[in-house]
C-alpha cells in the first residue's frame, strides 16, 4: 500500500512552495485586500509560466497533463500562501466543467487560454442566500439567451467567461437545469464587484439581460454536471483548506515559542499547548480525509461523491478551527490589522461557504453513506 503522494509529487510541492514563498508573500495578499488590484496579475502570469494552471489539463489542450494528484499538491500550496488569484474559480470550477461537459470546440477555445493564464473563468451558480439546489436556480434560459441575476459569483468581475446554471422549465426539477457558457466580454452581461469577508478573492453580482449564451453539455443535464463539478472542486478546495490550516497552526506554534509572558514562553502553558494540540488533530484528520478524496478524484472512483463530502467537511472544520485559534494564541496582537492572522481567518470562513455551507455537505455525506450501505 502506498497511501501517500509520490516522490515526484512531493518534489512538485517543494517547488510550488518555494515559488509561492517568493512570489506570494503576505505583502502580495495585502495588496489585493487593500484594493490596489482586483487580483495579483504578476502571480497569475507566473503560475501560468510554471505550468500550474494547466496541470490537470491534457497536453492536447495546452496543459501539462500531469493530473489531479499534482493539482491537489498545488492547491495545498495555494491555500497555504493565500494566493490572491482566481485559481479556484478558473481551475477547479470552470476548467473542470469544460473537461467534463465541454464540446470539442469549447475545450479547444478555452482550455489553452486557461493554461496560458490568458483567460479567467468562473461558475455562476448561486442566486442569493441558500445552498446549491435546482429549485434555487431562477435565472431563465430561452432561445439561446439568459435573463437573471447571479450572486455571489466568485471572481465574477474579472472573469473572461462564465459557466452559468439556468433553468429551461419552471418545475424546479434537476432535469430543468442546463448549463451555458457565456463570454463575459460580449453584450448583455454586467458584473458589479461586491464587498466580502475575504477581499483577497473578489465576489460579484452578475446580471444577464438577453445575454447570448451557448449550451455546455446536454440540455437537461446541467444539475448532474454541476454535482460532479462541485464534488471535484470540493476535493481541490479541501487541499487549499488544509494548506491554510497547516500554516495557521504553524503561525500559532511559532508565536507560542517566541512570546514570553509570566516569565516563560506561552507555549509552555498547557492551556496553549492543548489548544495547539487540538488544532494539530483537526488538521491531521482533515489531511487524511483529503488524501482519500485525492485518491478518489484521480482514479474517478465510485467513492468520489462520499470522499469529496468527507474531505470538504473535515477540511472546512480544520481550517476554521486553526484560523480561529491562531488568533486566540496570539492574544491582542492577533486581532490587529498588521498581523496576518486575520487573513487566514477571513479565507477560512469565506472558503467554508464557497461551494455550499457545512450543512449542505453534511446532508450530502449522509445521503451518500446511506446509498453505499444500501448497495
Amino acid at each position, binding site marked *: *500500500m*502506498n*497511501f*501517500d*503522494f*509520490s516522490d515526484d509529487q512531493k518534489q512538485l510541492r517543494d517547488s510550488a512552495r518555494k515559488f509561492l514563498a517568493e512570489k506570494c508573500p503576505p505583502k502580495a495578499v495585502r495588496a489585493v485586500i487593500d484594493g490596489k488590484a482586483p487580483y495579483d496579475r504578476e502571480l497569475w502570469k507566473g503560475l501560468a509560466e510554471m505550468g500550474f494552471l494547466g496541470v490537470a489539463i491534457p497536453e492536447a489542450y495546452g496543459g501539462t497533463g500531469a493530473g489531479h*494528484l499534482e493539482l491537489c499538491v498545488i492547491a495545498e500550496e495555494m491555500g497555504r500562501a493565500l494566493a490572491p488569484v482566481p485559481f479556484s474559480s478558473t481551475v477547479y470550477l470552470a476548467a473542470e466543467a469544460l473537461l467534463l461537459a465541454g464540446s470539442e470546440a469549447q475545450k479547444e477555445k478555452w482550455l489553452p487560454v486557461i493554461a496560458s493564464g490568458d483567460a479567467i473563468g468562473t461558475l455562476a451558480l448561486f442566486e442569493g442566500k441558500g445552498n446549491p439546489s435546482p429549485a434555487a436556480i431562477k435565472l431563465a434560459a430561452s432561445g439561446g439567451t439568459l435573463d437573471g441575476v447571479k450572486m455571489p459569483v466568485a471572481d465574477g468581475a474579472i472573469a473572461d467567461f462564465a459557466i452559468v446554471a439556468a433553468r429551461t422549465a419552471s418545475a424546479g426539477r434537476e432535469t430543468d437545469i442546463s448549463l451555458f457558457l457565456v463570454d463575459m466580454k460580449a453584450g448583455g452581461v454586467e458584473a458589479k464587484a461586491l464587498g466580502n469577508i475575504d477581499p483577497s478573492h473578489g465576489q460579484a453580482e452578475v446580471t444577464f439581460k438577453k445575454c447570448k449564451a451557448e449550451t455546455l453539455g446536454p440540455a437537461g443535464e446541467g444539475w448532474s454536471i454541476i454535482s460532479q463539478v462541485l464534488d471535484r472542486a470540493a476535493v481541490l478546495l479541501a487541499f487549499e483548506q488544509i494548506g491554510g490550516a497547516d500554516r495557521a497552526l504553524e503561525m500559532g*506554534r511559532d508565536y*507560542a*515559542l517566541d512570546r514570553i509572558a509570566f516569565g*516563560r*514562553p506561552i*507555549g*509552555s502553558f*498547557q492551556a*496553549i*499547548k*492543548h489548544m*495547539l*494540540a*487540538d488544532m*494539530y*488533530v483537526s488538521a*491531521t*484528520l*482533515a489531511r*487524511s*480525509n483529503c*488524501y*482519500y478524496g*485525492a*485518491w478518489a478524484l*484521480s482514479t474517478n472512483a465510485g467513492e468520489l461523491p462520499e470522499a469529496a*463530502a*468527507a474531505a470538504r*467537511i*473535515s477540511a472546512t*472544520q480544520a481550517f476554521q478551527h486553526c484560523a480561529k485559534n491562531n488568533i486566540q494564541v496570539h492574544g491582542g496582537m492577533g486581532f490587529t490589522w498588521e498581523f496576518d492572522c486575520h487573513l487566514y481567518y477571513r479565507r477560512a470562513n469565506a472558503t467554508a461557504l464557497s461551494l455550499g455551507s457545512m*450543512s449542505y*455537505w*453534511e*446532508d450530502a*455525506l*449522509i445521503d451518500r*453513506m*446511506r446509498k453505499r*450501505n444500501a448497495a
Partner: protein
Amino acid sequence: MNFDDTPQEAAFRTEAKAWIATHAPKQYEEELKSSSLGRSVLKGADFLDVAKAWQKKKADAGWACLHWPKDYGGRGASPIERVIWQQEEGAFGKLSFAFIIGHGMCGPTMMGYASEEHKRRYLPPLASGEEIWCQLFSEPAGGSDVAGLRTRAEKRGDEWVINGQKIWTSGAHYSDYGILLTRTDATVPKHKGLTMFFLDMKSPGVEIRPIKQANGDSHFNEVYFTDVKIPDSQRLGAVNDGWNVSLTTLMNERMSIGAGIATGFPELFEFCSNLMLEDGPAIDDRGVRSKLAQWAVRASGLKYTNMRAISALSRGERPGPENSIGKLVAGSMIQDISAYALDLQGAAGVLSGPEDAEAAGKFQAMLLRAPGTRIEGGTDEIMRNIIAERVLGLPGDIRVDKDVPFNQIPTKGR
C-alpha cells in the same frame, strides 16, 4: 497513491486469510463482531478460555506475535505483515484483549532488558498466551505522574524486598507474571531513583484486590506488596535506571492501544438508520445528520490516518508520536456518541437492561464504560502534551519537582 499490496504483501495476505478461514473459532464470530465497549462477553463460554485457545492455536502455527523473533515465539515478520494479519484477523482480534499488555508492553521490555536465558524461558509462553503478563506502574500517588510512584524495593543480599501498592493493573487477577516499576532511591530526584523488575504474580506477599469500576465491572486491580522477594537476576536494566526502561514500555503502550481503537461511530450510524422518531427515521432528521456527518469525518479521518501510518511502515519508516491522536480522538468520540444515542431515545434512554433498552442496551453500557477510555493508557491531557511537545516542539512543563530529592517533594495539597 494506491491501496494495493505489493506482490509480497499480497502473498502474505492470501496465506493469512486462508489459515484464518480454516482455523478461527467461527462459532463466536457474530458475537465478537457485535460486541462493543463495555460489553464484550461471550454467552455460554468463558472469554479467557476462548481467547487462550485461539492464541495457542495461532502460536503453534506461527501466527502469534508476528513481529517477534522466531526464537522468542514470534514469526520474524515485518511490521506491515503484522498489520495485514490484524486486518485479516478482524473480529477474532478482539480475543487478543487479555494479551495486549503482555505482548505490547511487557514483551518488548523483556526483549530489551532481560537476560538471554530469561527471554527464552518467558517470551514463548507469553506469545502463545499460556502465560499472561501484566504491567505494574500506576499507583495511588502516581498516575499521569508515573515517576511519582512510592513502592519501595530494598536490596538484601541477592534479593530485593518490595513493599507498597499498585493500582489500575489490568488483568492482574489472571496474570502469571508482571513487570514492576519501583523506587530504589528516595534521596535523589524522582526520575533518577527508579528500578524495573519482573516477578511471578504468585509470589508470597502479593495480594490482588479487584477494583469495582464506575460501570460496575472489574477489569482492573489493586495489587499490594508486603515483603515480596524478587531475585536480583529479575532486574530489568541498571539500578536506578528504571525510568528509561519504562519509556520503552510506555511508547509501546501507546502504539498498541492506539491501533484500531473503537469510536462507536459504526454502531451509531446503524442505530440512526433503524431508529424511528415521531416524524420518520432518525437519519432523515437534519439535526441527526449534522451530528452523524461530523463524527463520520472524524472516524474516516482516523481510518485514513492509520492508512498513512501503514504506508509509512510499508516503506520501512517507524511510526512516531503523531499516532497519539488515535486514542485522543476515539476516546472523546465514543463518550459523546454514546450520550447522543441515549438522547435520541428520549426518556427511555435511561433504561439499561438488554431486554428493555434500544439496541439491547449497547449504548448505555458504552456510556458507562467510556470515561475510562479517556484515562487509561495515558489521559487525554497527557496525549495532548505528547502532541504539543514531541510533534509540535513546544516546551515541556516547568517541573517544580525536577531537581528536588524525591523524599522532599510535598505529598499533600493542603
